């Protein structure tokens, strides 16, 4: 029997982060195999034809967080990746009353805000400048490997010290403000600045996106800054879409990897990570029973699943196992995908359809956000959910048959752990609730629905392998950031098992289509490889 070829690296999961890692490793000359359990690539960054003729983003819609350094490094735009930027970042309708439209241009947004509150309009440009400055700082942190909690080497600490100096360079006032704001509830942050409940609600919704907490929770300002990257400051989202759908990004990444020799196998589900006698990760076993050896294993699966399920029982020492078991996941997001016969018509909407090209938000006030999360705390679906809808067909008509549209709605909160009932029975009710809620703002929406599909946290878990349906692979709370992401002792993309790495959203800097975790993981893997190579020569 001939031994199967031993890869330098096997990637578990072809999410966008896994593909970034694969492309970078392959480019560095490693033999790379990517194993994806689903039929399509991209994980939660995929575009699939789930209704005939409609190519739908089944996960993320907005590519606004994609890190410029990742783009530049992989030269993705030269390889055919195209972005479409909506002039409008967010549109928040009201059932009776004027809607709020936030433009990419802060000045233009200010004049819209003036229709709601003059004071807010005056303060808005200053707010945008502050958020931009602070989120630029965050962006600098995103492509750095977090320092270890102790025994940090100078080389590891150096980039962070540089950044710290930059923080000091911001000036005393900004620096204190940065330190004060990071742990602050977005509720307080926005109350300090604005009066209009609608403006507060829209901005605040970025601070609670993907987490079970409400806007009064500490750390939500941090999340607002995170989502305000790349020009998204005026609305807490950048409304930058990929032409051809989000899946196109994954394909471009896959092509970049393949061009350098990486092999990609879909519908190959990894059931176990193999560990050799020395306790080093040595390969993977597929669900089919096939075993594939490799020098390194890189998991794009979430850390809990990687460490507790894939690694198999009795592989981690109890201390690490308890930490992995304590990773807070708490998926809370559902997605409703609609194929529409015509564009929805929102009440009091301005003429034209520019306002529908960004995010359409149902987040009328901070209290609304808070009440939505109250329900989730007790294991209930929010009776009045926070909705974030996108119509990708407006910026890219090729995604649907002529004249038809896709409405992709992200709904919060839909807690993974329901106190009563099961997701099987509650999923249709949730779909009705979302459509019904939207219809209060866009009467007649129901009549234009051609097809619909709901994805609950349970679906994320079952079909996408995201434990507890956590789209960020771990709640983006302050205690699960930086060196604490996914857990202490695991913050440098290395798992407690030698040769096993993590590269997904569960690692620093976190969720969203940033590419940064994959980018950083590749750097650390190559660093280890170099170190080992040096050792070998030394012996």
């Amino acid at each position, binding site marked *: 029997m001939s031994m199967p070829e031993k890869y330098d690296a096997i990637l578990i999961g072809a999410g966008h982060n896994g593909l970034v890692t694969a492309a970078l490793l392959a480019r560095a000359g490693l033999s790379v195999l990517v194993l994806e359990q689903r039929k399509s690539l991209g994980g939660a960054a995929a575009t699939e034809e789930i209704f005939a003729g409609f190519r739908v983003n089944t996960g993320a819609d907005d590519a606004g967080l994609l890190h410029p350094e990742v783009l530049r490094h992989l030269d993705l735009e030269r390889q055919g990746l195209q972005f479409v930027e909506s002039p409008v970042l967010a549109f928040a309708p009201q059932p009776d009353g004027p809607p709020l439209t936030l433009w990419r241009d802060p000045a233009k947004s200010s004049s819209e805000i003036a229709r709601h509150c003059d004071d807010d309009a005056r303060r808005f440009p200053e707010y945008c400048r502050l958020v931009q400055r602070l989120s630029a700082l965050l962006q600098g942190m995103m492509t750095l490997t977090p320092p270890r909690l102790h025994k940090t080497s100078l080389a590891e600490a150096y980039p962070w010290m540089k950044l710290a100096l930059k923080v000091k360079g911001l000036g005393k006032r900004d620096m204190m403000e940065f330190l004060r704001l990071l742990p602050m509830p977005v509720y307080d942050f926005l109350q300090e600045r604005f009066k209009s409940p609608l403006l507060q609600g829209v901005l605040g919704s970025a601070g609670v996106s993907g987490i079970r907490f409400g806007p009064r929770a500490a750390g939500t300002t941090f999340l607002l800054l995170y989502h305000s990257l790349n020009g998204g400051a005026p609305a807490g989202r950048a409304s930058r879409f990929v032409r051809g759908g989000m899946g196109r990004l994954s394909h471009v990444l896959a092509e970049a990897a393949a061009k350098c020799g990486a092999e990609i196998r879909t519908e190959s589900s990894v059931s176990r990570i193999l560990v050799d006698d020395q306790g080093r990760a040595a390969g993977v076993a597929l669900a089919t029973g096939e075993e594939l050896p490799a020098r390194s294993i890189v998991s794009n699966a979430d850390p809990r699943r990687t460490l507790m399920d894939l690694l198999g029982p009795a592989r981690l020492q109890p201390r690490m196992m308890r930490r992995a078991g304590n990773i807070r996941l708490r998926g809370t997001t559902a997605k409703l995908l609609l194929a529409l016969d015509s564009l929805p018509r929102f009440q009091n909407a301005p003429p034209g359809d520019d306002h529908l090209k960004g995010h359409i938000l149902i987040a009328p006030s901070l209290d609304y956000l808070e009440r939505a999360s109250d329900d989730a705390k*007790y294991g209930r679906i929010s009776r009045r959910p926070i909705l974030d809808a996108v119509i990708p067909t407006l910026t890219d008509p090729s995604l649907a048959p002529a004249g038809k549209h896709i409405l992709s709605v992200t709904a919060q909160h839909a807690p993974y752990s329901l106190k009563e009932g099961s997701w099987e029975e509650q999923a249709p009710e949730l779909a009705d609730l979302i459509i019904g809620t939207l219809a209060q703002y866009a009467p007649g929406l129901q009549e234009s629905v051609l097809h619909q599909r709901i994805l609950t946290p349970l679906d994320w878990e079952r079909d996408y392998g995201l434990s507890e349906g956590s789209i960020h692979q771990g709640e983006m709370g302050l*205690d699960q950031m930086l060196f604490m992401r996914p857990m202490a002792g695991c913050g440098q993309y290395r798992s407690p098992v030698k040769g096993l790495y993590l590269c997904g959203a569960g690692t620093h800097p976190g969720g969203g289509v940033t590419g940064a975790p994959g980018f950083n993981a590749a750097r650390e893997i190559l660093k280890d490889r170099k170190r080992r190579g040096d050792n070998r020569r030394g012996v």
Partner: protein
Amino acid sequence: MPDRYDAIVIGGGHNGLVTAAYLARGGLRTLLLERRPIVGGASVSEEVFPGFRFSVFSYVVSLLRPEIIRELKLPEHGLAILPLESTLTPLPDGDCLYRDADHYRTLRDIARFSPRDAEAYEDYGRTLYFMAKAVKYMLGIMPPDPTKLNPRDLIGMGGLGRHMLGLGEEKLQTLTKLMTMSSADFVEEWFESEPLKATLSASGIIGTFLGPRSPGTAYVLLHHYMGEIDGNFRAWGFARGGTGGISEAIASSACSLGAEIRTGASVERLIIKNGRILGVALQNGDEILSRTVISSLDPRHTFLRLAGEKHLPGELVASLKNYVYRGSSAKVNLALDAAPDFACRPGDGPHLRGAFSISPDLDYLERAYDDAKYGRFSRQPYMDVILPSMIDPAMAPPGKHVMSCFIQYAPYHLAEGDWDGQRQALGDTVIETLSQYIPNLKDIILHRQVLTPLDIERTTGLTQGNIFQGELSLSQLFFLRPAPGLAQYRTPIRNYYHCGSATHPGGGITGAPGRLAALEILRDLKK
């Protein structure tokens, strides 16, 4: 022309008293001015009803720094802290969780609810011991200012960094969690049974306008555990004579060290010239001159009212206006004709000499918070109840008792109505809730006193009735407390200082802010 003092301390709360005592001890001619007829601020004992003495506001002590007790010789001045050894969590089904100084017996009781929890309890206790030890360092120093490049602040930051890294990975990660998590999430890393989780995480909500599931409350939980580092496992105590006993002891010590204390003296404004303080003007028109003035009041009074915006930089005024108070606590004091009879433990017993925590499960606490978020007092409030007369019989006539109920949540801002209209409704809710666990309660109540956040504000001057002089949230701790640039007890006005709970390390009867402030002032005056 009145005499000139070296130091005038405004406000005779326990921190003001501690500052005055230390300044007098440092040889300064010190005068303390208290608006009310008695000293103590929120640490006072008063005979509210004939024969019944109450610790009117603050009611237990776990945090009073032992160095203060030693350095100010408080036991010689009458301080005695009596142990409050048990916590009883009665449950709606008639059962209860009972924890006391008998460690192994406590574990057995916890094991009735979950054997895993009993095992985890030891690990949890050890972890909090480590954490208290780690944080004690920070509580004992003046916060360095990370924006300053002078040697003292740099050394301070360096020392802090060394201390942190010296903790090792395991402790540092736990400390990080503790600083950022919710108390519920934190305790859920150990425990599964509701009464234990709720009762432990309740320490994280006391005095805050946050629920047990709000991030940031884990730190408050630790803050309440700090007392344990210097003493026994649960070093909660009750001062003989009530918390007023603490203030009286400090006042007596201060006087013996040469400080003067004037009650009924309300400060109207500061006398400031060329950005420098010269003294204070009282409501009665008197002006008293002093080299330094130290305010133990909260920032609204210290800065916005007494100093006035015109003497402060605009940025600072903006920060101080954003400083979060959010009073959330109320107090109900009951005079009882007899001892209360618990449904879960009928009759007399050692449990009556401990605390009772109305915290049957996490959702109960969280719902109580939900009410407050939307401007209502909790329909089913969290309560921490003790019977001071059981511990110190002198608090009530023989055979009769006083009951102190700390209530959360009672938001300062009500969505509907006002506190003058809702005060009695709050009292009724408290008694209804307690009666579920103490069936004879309604029959034995002789008198009741309901103190809403508004009453706390009116009597003690604490803005919005916040018992910590401002929320203990991450954005308002350490070098950010109460605002950037104000954390080192100095103010932009020369020779004007502040020393209240709104300064590092924060609220509770610790005396630590008062002591640290006094040490800084003495240091400045030596130069």
